[in-house]
């Protein structure tokens, strides 16, 4: 256990359940206390879980192509709820089809996410980054 808590889940009306299970498993193995909210998670649910568990970061997954619509406003709601500067991560198949990822990444960083990942990013990449960002590595 590294003493850090992560809240994660698949946002919006997205039901793709397998990826988040693997992510949750990988992060737990890496020493995190993982609060896995599963699929169909609303923005409010991430925030409430993060408040109650004193989470160090929120990891959002979106597979079905509507990530942009679902993620908009999450940063502002976090600010509103007192989760100031909580790191936000997002990955999966964020948009429909094959858009240039640099462009997609910019969209999500502008929305207030600390990092955004292209389709098929293995959990290890995320773990390495989050370790670094939380001062563990």
């Amino acid at each position, binding site marked *: 256990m590294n003493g850090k*808590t992560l809240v994660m889940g698949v946002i*919006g*009306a997205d039901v793709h359940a397998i990826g988040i299970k693997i992510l949750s498993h990988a992060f737990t193995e890496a020493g995190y*206390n993982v*609060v896995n909210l599963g699929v*169909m998670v609303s923005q409010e*649910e991430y925030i*409430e*879980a993060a*408040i*109650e*568990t*004193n989470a160090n970061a929120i990891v959002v997954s979106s597979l*079905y192509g*509507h990530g942009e619509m679902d993620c908009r406003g999450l940063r502002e709601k976090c600010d509103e709820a007192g989760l100031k500067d909580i790191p936000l991560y997002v990955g999966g198949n964020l948009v429909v089809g094959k858009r240039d990822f640099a462009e997609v990444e910019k969209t999500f960083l502008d929305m207030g996410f600390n990092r955004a990942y292209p389709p098929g990013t293995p959990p290890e990449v995320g773990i390495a980054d989050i370790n670094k960002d939380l001062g563990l590595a």
Partner: protein
Amino acid sequence: MHNAILAVDFGSTYTKVTAISNEKAEILGTSKAFTTFETDIRDGLNAAVQELEKQTGKLNFSHKLAASSAGGGLKMVAVGLVPALTAKAAQTAACSAGAKVVKTFSYELTKADCAKIRQINPDLVLLSGGTDGGNKDVILHNAKMLAEIDAPFSVIIAGNKAAAEDAQTTLQAGDKHAVICGNVMPAFNTLDAEPAKSAINTLFLEKIIEAKGLTQAAREFSAPIIPTPLAVFECTQLLSQSLGDLLAVDVGGATTDVYSMCAGTPTLPGVALKGLPEPFAKRTVEGDLGLRHSQETLVEKLISDGATGNNLLPVGLEEYRKTCKENYAYVPEKNHPHAAIDALLCGIAVDMAVTRHAGFLESSYTPFGEAFSQTGKDLTGVRYVIGIGGSVIYSENPPEILKNATQKQRGKILKPASPKLLLDKKYIFAAMGLLARMDKKRALSILESEL
């Protein structure tokens, strides 16, 4: 002389007694007398027993059991962090212990919240907040705020275990009796009501019994006195073993209590469950829905329904309100117009309390059409709705009142769809809950024959 078991319910107004046969599964008689707070609570008890023995002949009690809601019941306030998480968990735990949860607070307590708590003057405060290892700041802040309130309540700390000891120190520094028990939400979205429930029952015995003037009387009973709603809760729980899924409603002077015994999982396909997992045996207390002490909400609803033409406004409403305010124990004569107003308000209380108790559906429009999610328990499949408590059972037309517990049309509120309606005609639920603690089988067969 018969041998019998005596079950006593010390209420705010009446002390009710039930004699149960020692040989057969049978009620020998019931009776009541005014609760005697001013002198000795045993005076009222003795009067009720004398009255009882007029029906049954002299009785020899092998066991004496008692529940109490005297002195306003076990008044509690629940405090948590996020409304849908630890605040709800704390409220649920306190309700399942038989408490009257007057109000639930979330996030940091403000000065205004503390003023409200002082005004409520609870017997106990259940303080939660944070999963184990989760948020500490808020529960510590709230301990500090509670410590400063000038009222004699005790505090049960059932929050983040990493903050519990500091919270206790803070509360003790403010001269509050404070005990620590297991977290009501040890991990995210897991409800663990048992530790808080048993801490509440211990404090009820240690502190509340004395505060309500029951110490002397308590010595005469064969088992510890428990809160009346807990006895009723255990009775409905027992009954569900024989009847299946059920709902019970008790409209009182100060609160309306709803008990549901069912899993409450979605009955419609493709519905996702949201929020805190619901307990199979669930009790809720609506502190603003009572026929006497807390009439305002009900009267307002009656008036607004009247304004929309749903109900004709009853004549004499003002006079009725005045009479009730002057005398909380007021019981109108059977054919008095006030009895009809009581019945109307009682129906509204049942409607609102069951609506709040029941789960609800929400639809969201997704790129793939409409998707439904359910928060709370789906009660549509519940087979029985049982009316308990004087205001329902002694009314002119109890089924008319109880119908308010059901869905008028299939909608988003998951109230029972087409249940059978039953009544606790003889007012024995508390007594049977007490009996069940010593003899489940006998209690169940009495209930089966009385309902």
